[in-house]
């Protein structure tokens, strides 16, 4: 127990990095997902194809490989230089974005066609119809699936310790290297992950209640 108490300040610092990386990545991921979903639904074939290739490429490769590609691969070209945090955020964001895109696309496609027709018949434009009628309803329906993906992305951030980002997992490794208390520390790290993931699901159920499905 003392080992855990002593380690807490370090783990707390790691947890903050994890939370920071996660929040930024999930926001960027959501924007990527929305854009890719709209591209997949757009009438322009070229956009469909680009979006589909993107989603297939991301879903069809391991996230660890993507991480190495963005950090070591891209940097080795010498054209751009990504620091570890940016590369880490980028990886999680792009990965989440590909899955979000599929969730959003399915959510939009599941909407009753009558909603679009009613909105368009009133003279609303395509964009207005999406924004005021389709997306608000679709997002509400997607909330549980979104939460699922957000939780997966949060857990994915632990992989970023591999390229040296000082997140919760990496801090755990550092503490263990100094104290050799592997059992206690990994237990504590696990509990901390569990707590934020639990808070995330509480937030999601709150939002589900707040925006009651009608």
């Amino acid at each position, binding site marked *: 127990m003392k080992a855990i108490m002593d380690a807490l300040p370090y783990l707390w610092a790691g947890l903050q990095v994890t939370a920071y990386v996660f929040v930024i990545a999930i926001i960027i991921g959501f924007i990527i997902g929305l854009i890719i979903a709209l591209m997949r639904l757009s009438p322009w074939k070229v956009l469909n194809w680009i979006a589909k290739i993107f989603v297939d490429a991301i879903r069809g490769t391991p996230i660890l490989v993507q991480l190495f590609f963005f950090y070591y691969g891209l940097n080795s070209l010498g054209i751009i230089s990504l620091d570890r945090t940016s590369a880490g955020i980028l990886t999680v964001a792009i990965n989440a974005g590909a899955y979000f895109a599929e969730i959003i696309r399915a959510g939009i496609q599941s909407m009753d066609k*009558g*909603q679009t027709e*009613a909105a368009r*018949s009133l*003279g*609303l434009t395509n964009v207005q119809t999406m924004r005021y009628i389709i997306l608000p309803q679709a997002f509400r329906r997607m909330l549980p699936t979104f939460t699922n993906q957000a939780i997966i992305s949060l857990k994915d951030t632990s992989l970023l310790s591999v390229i040296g980002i000082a997140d919760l997992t990496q801090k755990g490794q550092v503490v263990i290297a100094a104290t050799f208390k592997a059992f206690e520390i990994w237990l504590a790290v696990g509990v901390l992950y569990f707590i934020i993931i639990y808070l995330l699901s509480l937030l999601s159920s709150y939002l589900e209640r707040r925006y009651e499905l*009608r």
Partner: protein
Amino acid sequence: MSLIEVKNLKKSFGNAEVLKDISVTIDKQEVVCVIGASGSGKSTFLRCLNRLEEITSGQVVIDGQDITAKDANINQIRQEVGMVFQQFNLFPHKTVLENIMLAPMKAKGITADQARQKAEALLAKVGLKDKAGSYPNELSGGQQQRVAIARALAMNPKIMLFDEPTSALDPEMVGDVLDVMKQLAQEGMTMVVVTHEMGFAREVSDRVLFIDDGVIMEENKPSELFADPKHERTKAFLSKIL
């Protein structure tokens, strides 16, 4: 003056030709009922009038504007043409009042205050003043359909299209909706109504179009069409439903 002019309208879905050369003109303040068996193309015809269906060939002119022209501003034109659907299609995530206020604010850019005033007046007109804050799923079908009518009217359309507005309603709800439509007709609204309500067609409409197999088989004043149908197909159809 004719408000709607349809010339040689054809519409196919894939290989199936649903509308085969329909031409008709509808005057200002005229109430036209469109009847026919299901699958005859009457709903498709209606949906071509505001381009919810893209036509295959021909021309649809609304208030002097060819709506199928390449440079036609369809969103602008649709503001002039209200539509009421069989399944109401209210926006379930918005209150009754918000349903009615949305399009005037977003498409026409009027202020929230003006939109609210207008919406409240329309709700009073359709007899649902006390439902302003309700959500659509808290209303009966008949109430939802009256809200849908109010929502369409909020844009001050010149024409109202009704696509089987009472077909999804419980029988005891039909009367309220038809009463609102009757009132509209009396106020001089130009209306095209696809319906199975022959009583309404007979009582309220100026003209009845009988569509069969994608063509207008017969059109006439309701008194004559119902009493003395000329065409065999019309007779057969009417004998089945009257």
